[in-house]
């Protein structure tokens, strides 16, 4: 809780060696949140330019999907979204007072499941691109 722990200026990353699981979870949740909200604005902007006509929509989406870098960016976006979802569920439980003693372990579990789901999704995201 921000009003209990004096964490100083977390943005001074020189302190990173002192960070414990809770601090890393907070940092990763914040970072993935910034990426997701940035993507939301970009997503609507791209769709706005693509919905001029049905042909432009199909051409835009298929044109983007033809780029290998876009496929890798999608895998990155999936990883970001999955971590934010899993750690978000963990935060909801923490706020309800459930599993407080194990909240560091549930953070590590979020990381492991994010990694597993991301790796398992790679074939789907790269299908037809290589």
């Amino acid at each position, binding site marked *: *809780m*921000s*009003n209990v*722990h004096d*964490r100083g200026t977390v*943005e001074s990353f020189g302190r990173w060696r002192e960070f*414990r*699981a*809770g*601090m890393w*979870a*907070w940092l990763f949740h*914040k970072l993935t*949140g*910034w990426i*997701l*909200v940035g993507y*939301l*604005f970009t997503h*609507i902007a791209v*769709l*706005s330019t693509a*919905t001029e006509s*049905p*042909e432009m*929509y*199909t051409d835009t*989406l*298929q044109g983007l*999907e*033809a780029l290998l870098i876009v496929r890798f960016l*999608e895998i990155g976006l*999936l990883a970001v*979204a999955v971590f934010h*979802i899993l750690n*978000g*569920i963990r*935060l*909801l439980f*923490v*706020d309800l007072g459930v599993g*407080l*003693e194990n*909240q*560091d372990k549930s953070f590590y579990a979020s990381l492991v499941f994010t990694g597993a789901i991301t790796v398992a*999704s790679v074939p*789907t*995201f790269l*299908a*037809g*691109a290589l």
Partner: protein
Amino acid sequence: MAEHYSSFERGSLRWLLQRVTAVFLVGALAFHFVLLHFVNHAAEIEFAGTEARMGSLIYFSLMITFLVTATFHGVNGVFNGLVNMGLTGRKKRIVAAVLALASLLLVAQGIRVAIAMGGF
């Protein structure tokens, strides 16, 4: 207990709304990803399929709710992060106004896109 950090003041309205939208978004974001990347492969999506999905009032309503809650959750998260980093006074009011305006514009444009997709 291990340390627990948050950018939110626990018990505040902004904190509560962030949690309520989070519960919805956990399902909505997962559904969006699964439907448009795993059930329908993104590279094979064409306008006709999008129009068929968005033409359903249930799907359209779900996407609009998704847009509104995601915008609120994201912008509220950014705002609380900035407040937590020390944003106060006049700067805080200006940032709140700019973020609120950006949110309204995003939601309005997102609704326009959804209407165009649904062929309404």
